[in-house]
C-alpha cells in the first residue's frame, strides 16, 4: 500500500535555489554562452557584400568542407558498426558466464574508455606505426620491410575507435543482457527454436533498444573524435573537429573556422535531437527479472570455447596496444632502458622544448586539482537545485548543464580564444583559463554522479529517520549527507580524470610555456627522432597510470555506493 507520497523529500525554497543556482548559471553564461555567441558573431562577420550569412554558406558549400563532412560521417558510421560487432560477444560472455576474475576483468575493460585520447592515439601509433614491435619481430624473422604501416590509414583510426568505445557497448548492452531471464530463451528452445532462432526471436528484440542506444553514443563520440584523428590521420583524413583546428592554428582563418564550428555545433545538436527521439521511442525493458544471478559457470566444452575465444580476442584488442605502448616507452637503441624517462626531465635538449617535458606533469596535476575544486563546488550546487527542486528551474538548469557536454571540445577551445582574449574578459594569460575550460566539461559529470544518487534515496529512509527522532536538518545530514559525500568523491574523481586527459580545448588555450601532459605528448610526437618518440610513449604511459589510478578509485567508491543504494 505504498502510496508513493514523497512527503519527506527535502524541498529547496525558491530563495535557496536562487542562491545555489546562481553561481553555476553565471559560470555557464560567462564561459559557455558568451564564447558560443562570439563564434556565431565571428562567423557572421566574415560575410561579404551579399549579406552576413553568405560567408558561412560559402564555407559550408565549399568542396573541401563537403569532403570533410563526408569523411566525418563515414568514419563514424564504420567505427560504430565495428564497435557493436566487436563488443557483442563480450557483452554475452559477461552477462551469462561466471568465471574467476570476472569482476576485475569487467572493470578493466572500462580503462580504454577513460584513457585520454592522446594516450589511445599514442598506443596505436606504437602498435601500428613504423616503429611497431611487430615490424621488429618481422625483421628478426627475416621478413623484409615493415609489415605493419597503418599510420595515417583509416584502419588505424577505426581500430582506435573500437578500442576506445568497446566498453560503452559492453556496459550498456551487457547490463540489459544480464537482466534478461535466460528462461525466456530456454522456453523458446523447448518450443522448438534453434539456438540461433531463439536468439533472433527472443533475445535480440529485447536487446535491440540497448544496442541502438549504445550505437548512438558511439556514433556521437566518433563524430566528434579529435585527438585520435589528429594524431593517427593524414591531411586527407580530417573530421570537422580536426579541420576547425587546422583552419585556426595553421591557416589562421578565424571566420572560416567559426563557420566550421557552427556547422559542427549544428550537426551535434541534430544528432543529440535524433538521439533524444530514439531514446523516447525505445524503452529499455527493465525489471524483467530481479537482478538475481543468471550466470553459469564455464563448464562444458562449448562454453569454454565461446568464453575463451571472446575473452582472448578482447584481451588482444584492449590490452595489446597498451602493452606495446609501455614497451615502446622503455625502448632505447637496441635494448630497453629508462633513457626516455630520464630525458623527460631535461629542458632544451635536442627537442628544443622550452621546458622539461616532466614539468607538464606538475602543470597537469595543478590544473586537475583546481578543476576538481571548481567542478565539485559548482557541480554540487547545481545538483542540489536539480535534485531538491521540482519544476522548470530544476529541469532548465539540468538541460543547461548538459549543453557543454554536447559541444565538442574543439568548439569550446575555439570559443575561448575568440571570446576571452579581449577586455572585458581577457583571460589569455590567466592560469585559471585551463581549469575553467576543464570545469565546463567536468561539471556535468559531477551533476550526473550526484543527482541520480540523491533521487534514488528511498523516501522511506527519510521517514524512518524522522520517526526515530531526527529533525529535518538532521535527517538530511544523516540520510542524504553520506550519499552526497560519496557522490562528490566520485564526481571529483571524474573531474580529475577529465582534466588530466582533456586535449581538444586545451590545445587551443594552453600557453607554450605551461603545457599539460597531453599537449606535451602531442608536441613530442610532432618532432622527429627515436628519443622524442620514446619520450612521448613514456609520457603517455605516465598519463595512463595516473588516469587509471583515478578511475580505479572512482570505481571503488562508486561500487560501494552502487551496492548500498
Amino acid at each position, binding site marked *: 500500500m505504498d502510496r508513493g507520497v514523497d*512527503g519527506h523529500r527535502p524541498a529547496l525554497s525558491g530563495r535557496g535555489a536562487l542562491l545555489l543556482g546562481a553561481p553555476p548559471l553565471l559560470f555557464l553564461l560567462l564561459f559557455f554562452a558568451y564564447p558560443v555567441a562570439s563564434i556565431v558573431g565571428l562567423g557572421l562577420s566574415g560575410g561579404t557584400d551579399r549579406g552576413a550569412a553568405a560567408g558561412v554558406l560559402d564555407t559550408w558549400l565549399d568542396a573541401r568542407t563537403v569532403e570533410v563532412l563526408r569523411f566525418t560521417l563515414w568514419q563514424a558510421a564504420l567505427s560504430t558498426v565495428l564497435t557493436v560487432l566487436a563488443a557483442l560477444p563480450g557483452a554475452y560472455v559477461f552477462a551469462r558466464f561466471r568465471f574467476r576474475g570476472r569482476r576485475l576483468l569487467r572493470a578493466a575493460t572500462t580503462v580504454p574508455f577513460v584513457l585520454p585520447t592522446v594516450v589511445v592515439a599514442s598506443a596505436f601509433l606504437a602498435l601500428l606505426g613504423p616503429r611497431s614491435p611487430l615490424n621488429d619481430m618481422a625483421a628478426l624473422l627475416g621478413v623484409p620491410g615493415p609489415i605493419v604501416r597503418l599510420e595515417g590509414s583509416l584502419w588505424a583510426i577505426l581500430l582506435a575507435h573500437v578500442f576506445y568505445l568497446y566498453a560503452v557497448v559492453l556496459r550498456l548492452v551487457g547490463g540489459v543482457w544480464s537482466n534478461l531471464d535466460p528462461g525466456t530463451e530456454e522456453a523458446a528452445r523447448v518450443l522448438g527454436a534453434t539456438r540461433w532462432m531463439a536468439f533472433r526471436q527472443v533475445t535480440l528484440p529485447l536487446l535491440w533498444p540497448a544496442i541502438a542506444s549504445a550505437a548512438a553514443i558511439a556514433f556521437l563520440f566518433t563524430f566528434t573524435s579529435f585527438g585520435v584523428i589528429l594524431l593517427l590521420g593524414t591531411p586527407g583524413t580530417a573530421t570537422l573537429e580536426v579541420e576547425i583546428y587546422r583552419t585556426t592554428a595553421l591557416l589562421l582563418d578565424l571566420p572560416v573556422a567559426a563557420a566550421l564550428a557552427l556547422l559542427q555545433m549544428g550537426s551535434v545538436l541534430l544528432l543529440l535531437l535524433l538521439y533524444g527521439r530514439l531514446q523516447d521511442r525505445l524503452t529499455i525493458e527493465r525489471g524483467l527479472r530481479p537482478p538475481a544471478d543468471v550466470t553459469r559457470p564455464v563448464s562444458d566444452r562449448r562454453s569454454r570455447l565461446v568464453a575463451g575465444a571472446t575473452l582472448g580476442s578482447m584481451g588482444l584488442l584492449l590490452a595489446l596496444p597498451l602493452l606495446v605502448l609501455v614497451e615502446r616507452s622503455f625502448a632505447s637503441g637496441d635494448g630497453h632502458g629508462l633513457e626516455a624517462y630520464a630525458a623527460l626531465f631535461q629542458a632544451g635538449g635536442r627537442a628544443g622544448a622550452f621546458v622539461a617535458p616532466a614539468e607538464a606533469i606538475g602543470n597537469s596535476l595543478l590544473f586537475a586539482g583546481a578543476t576538481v575544486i571548481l567542478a565539485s563546488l559548482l557541480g554540487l550546487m547545481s545538483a542540489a537545485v536539480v535534485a531538491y527542486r521540482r519544476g522548470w528551474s530544476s529541469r532548465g538548469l539540468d538541460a543547461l548543464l548538459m549543453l557543454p557536454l554536447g559541444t565538442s571540445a574543439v568548439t569550446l577551445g575555439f570559443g575561448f580564444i575568440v571570446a576571452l582574449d579581449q577586455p572585458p574578459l581577457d583571460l589569455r594569460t590567466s592560469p585559471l583559463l585551463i581549469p575553467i575550460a576543464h570545469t565546463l566539461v567536468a561539471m556535468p559529470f559531477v551533476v550526473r554522479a550526484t543527482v541520480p544518487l540523491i533521487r534514488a534515496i528511498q523516501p522511506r529512509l527519510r*521517514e524512518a*529517520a524522522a520517526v*526515530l527522532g531526527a529533525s529535518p536538518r538532521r535527517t538530511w545530514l544523516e540520510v542524504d549527507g553520506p550519499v552526497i559525500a560519496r557522490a562528490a568523491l566520485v564526481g571529483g574523481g571524474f573531474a580529475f580524470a577529465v582534466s588530466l586527459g582533456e586535449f581538444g580545448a586545451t590545445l587551443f588555450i594552453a600557453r607554450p610555456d605551461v603545457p599539460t601532459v597531453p599537449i606535451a605528448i602531442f608536441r613530442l610526437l610532432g618532432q622527429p627522432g627515436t628519443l622524442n618518440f620514446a619520450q612521448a610513449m613514456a609520457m603517455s604511459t605516465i598519463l595512463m597510470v595516473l588516469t587509471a589510478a583515478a578511475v580505479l578509485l572512482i570505481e571503488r567508491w562508486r561500487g560501494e555506493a552502487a551496492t548500498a543504494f
Partner: protein
Amino acid sequence: MLTLDTVSLRYGETQVLDAIDLAVADGELLTVLGPSGSGKSSLLRVIAGLAPPDRGAVHWDERDLARVPVHERGFGLMFQDFALFPHRDVHENVAFGLRMQGLGAGRIAARVAEVLELVGMSGMGKRAVSRLSGGEQQRVALARAIAPSPRLLMLDEPLGSLDRALRERLPLQLRDIVRAMGASAIYVTHDQEEALGIADRTIVLRDGRIVADAAPARLWAQPPDEWVARFLGFRNVTLASVRDGRAETPWGTVPLPAGVPDGECRLVLRPTAFVPDPDGTIRGLVTARLFRGDHLRLELAVRTASPLDVEARWDPLPSPGDQLALRIEPEGVIVLPAVESAPGTPSSAEADHRPPYRANLRP
C-alpha cells in the same frame, strides 16, 4: 493514550481514510486488519505524522499532535519494507534513534546490545544490513523501532515478506517483546490469523472506514456483517427466513440459537459445526476434498445452492462422490441482520458490537 477524532485523508480522488474514530489505551495491543488498499498503512502514516490528515485530529493524552512534527512524537514505526539504512551496519541502524535522543556512546552501546539480545541478534552488530536474510532484517527493523523505547509502537505488515515458518513463530515473539516494553502497539496486517492471534483488540478497515472493532474472540464469534464475516474467511453466508427458532436456507432447515425473532435475516454457518446425521436436513454430494492434516475440508453441492464449506473430523472420512446427510449445531450459526451495511452507513450491527469503552470516549 492515543485518540483519533474523525480523521480523514484523501490522495487525489481517493478517500483513503474516512472519518476514523479510534482510541488505543496505554499498554493495549491493537491489530488493524483489512484487505490491500483499505487504508491500513495510511492510518499509521497519519498517526506517525508522515501524512497530515485532511480533517480530524490525532491526540496523545490531551495533546493535539497537529503541530508536533514526526521526529518529536516519540512513536516507533516499523516499515513494511523495513527501510533499513543501507549504508549503516546493524549496530548503527539500531543506534540511530538513540543517537537522535542525544545519548552517550556508552549508554547507546548498552541499549543496542540489550535490544539485539531481545530480538535474538546478539553479536551481529557489525554485519552489513544488505547481507542479512529477510528474517534477520525484520528483526533488526524491530530492534531499531523499539530501541528508543517509543510510547507507541506501530508495525506495518511486519511479517509481510517472510516465509511461512517465520510467519507462524514470530507473531508470538513480537507480542512478548511489545508486552515487555509496556508501550501501546498498533499492528497492521491483512492476515486474519495473525491479527486475531495476538491482539487485545482488533479493528477491521474497509475502504478507509472502521467496520468492526472488538476483541478477537468476540469478532470471531459474532462478525458485525456479511462483508467482515467473508473477510474473516466464512463462506457459508446466506439469506434466510426465520420461523419459530428455525431458519429456511437454500441448504436446508437450520436450527437457531435462542432468541432470534421471526422474519428475514442473514446467516453464517460455521464449517466446523456440521455433524453427520442420517436424519439431517442438509443433504448433498461431496465434490471436492482438501486434506488438512487432522481434518478434511469438503465442498458439498447441495441442490442448486452455492457449495457448502464443511470441515469434517469424523470417521470414516468422506470421499468425493459420497452422498452426505448432515445437521448443524445451533451454536455454529451466526445471525446477522438481513440488510447488508453499505460502506458509509454505520450498520446497527456495528453499533451493537461497539465495545462500551469506545462510546465513553465521545464527549
